[in-house]
């Protein structure tokens, strides 16, 4: 991914009240650990990336309910908007990314695409295969109570761990 795209992604995320934390692949557990407000629940990351100790993977609803932080992978990210694309998958990523007050999303730099077009283009066949995705941009928000409030039904804080490609 070009550095332009990555810096656009960082700016896009910040515009939407999210922060981006670059990390080497083997530094992911440490980077994530620093972003956790315990207790934390998580979904195992794909492609050999590890989560730090102390994160309850295979969470129960009770653990989900008690967690302050949820950690999931993001399949894709969109630079223009600072969006992360979360999969509504069998591992429970949807619930883990949604219930705790803080969501930590882990995405590979190689999966950051410049714009909406590219993202939808990449998702088309997966959706046709039956997948479900959430384009998540920043924390949840509402203006229904008379003022903009960050954190409505979903997380109040979004931290994005950007995993630099290992061959770079």
């Amino acid at each position, binding site marked *: 991914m070009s550095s332009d795209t990555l810096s656009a992604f960082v700016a896009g995320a910040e515009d939407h009240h999210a922060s981006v934390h670059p990390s080497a692949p083997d530094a992911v557990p440490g980077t994530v650990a620093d972003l956790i407000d315990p207790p934390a629940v998580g979904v195992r990351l794909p492609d050999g990336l590890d989560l730090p100790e102390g994160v309850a993977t*295979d969470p129960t609803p009770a653990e989900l309910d008690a967690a302050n932080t949820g950690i999931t992978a993001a399949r894709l990210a969109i630079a223009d908007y600072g969006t992360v694309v979360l999969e509504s998958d069998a591992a*429970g990523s949807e619930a883990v990314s949604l219930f705790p007050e803080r969501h930590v999303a882990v995405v590979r730099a190689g999966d950051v695409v410049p714009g909406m077009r590219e993202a*939808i283009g990449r998702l088309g066949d997966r959706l046709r295969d039956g997948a479900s995705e959430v*384009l998540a941009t920043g924390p*949840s928000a509402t203006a229904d109570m008379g003022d903009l409030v960050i954190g409505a039904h979903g997380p109040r804080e979004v931290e994005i761990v950007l995993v630099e490609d290992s061959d770079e």
Partner: protein
Amino acid sequence: MSKPDSRAETAARIRHLLETEGDAVAENTRGFNRGRHEAVRELEGYEALKSEARTVKEDAIERLPELIDDLREAVEANGGRVYVADDAADANAYVREVVDGGTVVKSKSMTTEELELNEALEADGAAVTETDLGEWVLQLADEAPSHIVGPAIHKSREGIADLFAETFDLAGEDRPETAEELTRFARERLLRDIREADVGVTGANFLAADSGTMALVTSEGNARKSAVVPDTHVAVAGVEKVIPTVEDLAPFIELIGRSGTGQDITSYVSLLTPPVASPPVRFSESDEPMADAGTAAGDGACEAHPDREFHLVLVDNGRLAMREDDDLRETLYCIRCGACSNSCGNFQSVGGHAFGGETYSGGIATGWEAGVEGLDTAAEFNDLCTGCSRCVPACPVKIDIPWINTVVRDRINRGGDPGRFDPLVEGLTPDDESGGIDPSKRLFGNFDTLAKLGSATAPLSNWGASLGPVRAAMDRWLGIAPERDLPTFERETLVDWFESRGGPRVSEGMARREAVVYPDTYTNHVAVDRGKAAVRTLEALGVRAHVPESTAVASGRAPLSQGMVETARGKAERCRDALLAEVDAGRDVVVIEPSDLAAFEREYERLLPEADATALADGCYEVLEYVYGLLENGAEPAGLAAAGDGHAAGYGDSRGAGDGGDDGESDGDGDGIPVAYHAHCQQRTLDLEAHTVAVLERLGYDVTTSETECCGMAGSFGYKSAYYELSMDVGEPLVEQFGDADRVLASGTSCCEQLDALLGPSTEHPIEAIAPPER
């Protein structure tokens, strides 16, 4: 149909809403609208995206039956069910069966409001909770949404705090007050309901036929929770939401938030292909892992979770008939972004409780209500569309909303009781309209007849019209607001003046161009000065100007705004005959009144053969657009009045000493005479505001343009007693912005009248500010 009684009732209802909800609605809608302006300014290729979005919808509605079949196939292949419901009862019966008296959490869906699904479910003993915070507030308050995107924008924070305190018996420390506290409270309360729900009900913003994917556009996250926690998900959506492919979603995702609330994107755009793979979250079995132990993100993602059940209810309820209706069809392109509401001056003042029907509100609501509820419901608020057209450039799918309102108004007119035909004004109609059309509509729709009569009998007509008893009768019988100054008819029309001065003054040989100044009804009979100013200006720029009697024909704009489409068509044909003859003779048609220009450029294509409409549109120019073009093409502004000249000296006099090299351009450093300029709504829609500003600046004026969408008068609207107060309220921001201005310019007739009423009578047309003095 407005009888004297119902007129008074309408006025009272509007006054009540102005007082109780007006401020909150104004603040929110104007905020959304400003947000839209900013967000689309930053969006690259905005116009191209809108065209693309429109093309997708045109294609989708064209192929709708086929796409519904494709969608069914895709959803069923994933293991979900699809039901196409004919009407509300049919849809509700299906959902009732699925819910079976259980507990339901719902995310915001206008379609379920249309069906009154909550009531239907509750009749079976089901507990239904709205989880969108705005909708929940309305559910607690037992009120209807006032905006299709922000259902509770009419409620203040204090009002919500009181509502919560009362409903949940909260006092002291427990009583949430701030927006933050109120949100927290609602979140926690609603989470209890979400945990226990048997069924989640959502709408769908879009449905892709190729994959069975539904898009849900939200910011709160409640739709995600409603769809993911319970094992059963019911999505309810109008059939018009189907689009061909997943890829077709792209333009809509980029447009919908920007158009609606001014967000470049909402926090969540869920693309769910249900039944989804996500495990249901069983809080009742809270110590069992949700997912199979050891699964990683992405594993087996495409398989529907075995415990999940999904039902898609596609609602017809009049939509497939709208598809067959040439005028209402466009309504189905609507993506319910709310931009038309936010950009509407009247909506900004009263919101959807006045400007809306049983479900939908704002400009496009007339189309929706006429299609799904019927003309009676649409009639209740259709008059609040003044046809100003400010919603047209705001709409991301380029729907001609004012036209839909005109057509529905026409159908309402025709649907009325012919027995209510009022002989008082019968003489005013030629008459192409049938049906029991409202007398005030007839009056305003035939303003040209009235104007002819008015000029012929002036000043008697003016004196008579100003008498108290006459005004009282006009109010009673015609619904004309007694507070409003009536136009003063001039004895000498523009046409008469032009003839009596001896016709054109620029000789054929010397003429740079030949032009006809179109003597629209108002310019010809009332605002004669601006017509004279136009002639003098063109002559100063070397144009051989004419005002032939043959062209003094009404454009049809007035009857059009009353929904008298056939009358308008007849007038349009006469006007075309007169003006096209001039165009064919090589003359440009210069138009002063922006609403007439809009008729030529936007509406004649609906009234006349396409070739005629195009030829006329190509041959006509707004007067300052024309002046701008002349100056750009080398005409010398020397003869025009410039800032600082007052009206006494021509610009040429001040530079007559041969200072050489001065091309007459002002240095633009802003030290010119300040003027406040309000462009007419339709002029802005046609992108013509900039020309006027450029000309004024070139002549040395320091121009401030108005920030408000509308002055509130829009044609005859502000004359009507039912709407007088609303009209003045819409104009309020202009008072705030222009209150201290020394010199106020406005390009529309009604804008000038409204500004006079708001600021004191001194508003001029910009052509009067630049015209050389009368000789």
